């Protein structure tokens, strides 16, 4: 009968211990970055509208699948660019067709609509691409190229994921802090009526937020697909992990989302060390429930501010 060894790390070899720890850490950072990027997408739309967009995971899936489709015709960078643009258009369309013309609807109702939209996107993807599994080629090297530091190995694609995510975050920060458009979006997020009085078109800001989130999601999908593959239903589980991270960090706070993503990823990774892997997701969701019960504003969130926010 098979048995699992919990403390299978030989303690007598200190060096090996540290290297294994580091390998788990690297794995955790890999998962965590993926979750964080999805969470940032959630936060952008949330900040502009107060909606939790359940279709966020589908943007990631669409980005990956479209890129693979385009890659058969175009070189890789153009395929990715094309995928991002197409997904952004889809994001804009979703907002315009489903959300824009509703007159001050309840936010919860909109959230439920996004659930329905997520399902529809998934089924359309099924009809378009079937059930097969797809991936872009590795950006550098192949499936087995690794960069090794001692006995710790990391695939260059993971570095791509981390660096592209970092660049996205920096650009977003820049956008929201220094550009006029970004500041207008922030104005809308904190006080919609006042912003409108200043001449900012709230409706356009909402569309822009969808476009941005879709773009981020799509890019993440492209960069991550060599590692994780995409399939018509990859979006769902990503969405759940993504908003767990978003809530963990505090809804709306993208910097915190990154930290929260890394924390969750690392926690999950280390949980595999000591627990049956089958329950790995139970950990993530239990953390979600714990946070919701104990501190819904998130680890880094402002408790008073979140209480004031309208639901």
């Amino acid at each position, binding site marked *: 009968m098979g048995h699992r060894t919990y403390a299978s790390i030989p303690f007598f070899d200190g060096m090996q211990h540290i290297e294994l720890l580091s390998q788990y850490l690297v794995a955790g950072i890999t998962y965590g970055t993926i979750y964080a990027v999805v969470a940032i997408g959630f936060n952008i739309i949330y900040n502009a509208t107060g909606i*939790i967009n359940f279709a966020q995971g589908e943007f990631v899936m669409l980005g990956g699948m479209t890129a693979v489709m385009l890659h058969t015709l175009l070189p890789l960078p153009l395929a990715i660019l094309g995928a991002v643009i197409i997904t952004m258009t889809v994001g804009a369309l979703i907002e315009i067709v*489903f959300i824009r013309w*509703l*007159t*001050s*609807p*309840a*936010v*919860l*109702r*909109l*959230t*439920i*609509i996004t*659930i*329905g*939209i*997520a*399902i*529809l996107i*998934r*089924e359309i993807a*099924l*009809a378009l691409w079937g059930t097969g599994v797809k991936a872009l080629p590795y950006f550098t090297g192949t499936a087995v190229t690794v960069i090794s530091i001692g006995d710790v190995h990391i695939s260059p694609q993971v570095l791509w994921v981390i660096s592209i995510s970092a660049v996205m975050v920096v650009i977003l920060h820049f956008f929201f802090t220094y550009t006029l458009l970004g500041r207008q979006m922030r104005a809308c997020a904190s006080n919609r009526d006042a912003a409108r009085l200043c001449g900012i078109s709230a409706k356009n800001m909402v569309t822009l937020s969808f476009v941005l989130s879709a773009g981020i999601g799509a890019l993440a999908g492209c960069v991550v697909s060599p590692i994780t593959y995409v399939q018509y239903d990859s979006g*769902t589980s990503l969405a*759940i992990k993504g*908003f*767990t991270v978003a*809530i963990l960090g505090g*809804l709306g706070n993208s910097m915190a989302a990154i930290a929260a993503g890394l924390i969750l990823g690392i926690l999950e990774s280390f949980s595999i060390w000591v627990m*049956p892997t*089958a*329950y790995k*997701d*139970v950990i993530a*969701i*239990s953390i*979600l*429930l714990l946070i*919701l*019960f104990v501190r*819904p504003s998130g680890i880094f969130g402002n408790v008073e501010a979140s209480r004031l926010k309208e*639901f």
Partner: protein
Amino acid sequence: MARNKYLRIAIFTACVIAIQIITSFAGKTPYLTQLTMAGYYSLVIIGLTLLMGYTGQISLGHAGFFAIGGYLSAFLTTYNLIPYKDKLVVTWLAKTGALVMRQDLYGRDILAVQPWAACIAAVLVTIAIAYVIGRPVLKLKGHYLAMATLGFGTIVYKIVLGTGLLGAADGLSDIPGFRLIPGLEVSGKAALRIQNYYIAWGLVILGVTLLTNLIHSRVGRALRSIHGAEDAANAMGVNTSQYKQNIFILSAVFAAVGGVFLTHFNGGIGPSEASIMKSVRYVAIIAIGGMANLWGALSMGTVLNFLSLRGYFGSYDDAVFGFILVVIMLLAPEGLLRTDLFRDIRKRFQHKPSQEEQSP
């Protein structure tokens, strides 16, 4: 007033009977199978209408309670206790009559909990879980509530999917019939089909009666006040959190009972019953029926589940419910089967300026 509310139930009962007679007449008795299954799913819908429609608490994880009921009953009635025959717990259980020795499909002897005891156990456990989960969950509002319930549903799904004792991905099979009283048995046997149809819908009628009584009582008024303006109700001395908690537990029990009975009718249960898509379906049905409109939810639920179980939607089953969710929430968040539906739609397309809409 009293006559009015029971009138509807009486008409409903008449319809149930009429449908059975019509199907038998038309030679389409096998339809009763899917109608019976739809009936058990309707129990979940009754509970959910109470929760979502009357107390205004959304639940995206109610399939979890259905699964808890079904799986517990399935496990208890199929887990063979013969290897543990001599343990104290087992002999004590046997004395209380909770166990039964029977032969399974292949003629092997099994000592397991008998269905009645398993059903009661399943309901008790559900109450306990709903109590524990309910307290913190119901303190949340809006998105957070939605997500907490979604999280709960996902945990149940992952647990039944990952636990070997519960059959993991295969689920549990060869579940025996459930003898209610000598002569009435919940089971999938073709000969007992009509009987089972009435058992299922009998339960639904019972549930609807319970609901109707509840709504027209003091409790019902308290609920409506909570739904309308919770803070005001609190200020008036209504113990809102207690009410919400109790309704949550009640809706969970409805779902669990549906799960127990359907499991015995089907003879098996799989993790798909706990999946998030199932929970989303229930919400879609409530939405299309009208949040607080029990009859609407019941009829739409029956129709949709019936068609889905017969494969009418083919491979796009989920898409249908997703489509319903989107369209209903967009155009008719108050549901479809209302007399003022058309007036509402016309209004929506005519007036653009800000209109205060009530939250679901």
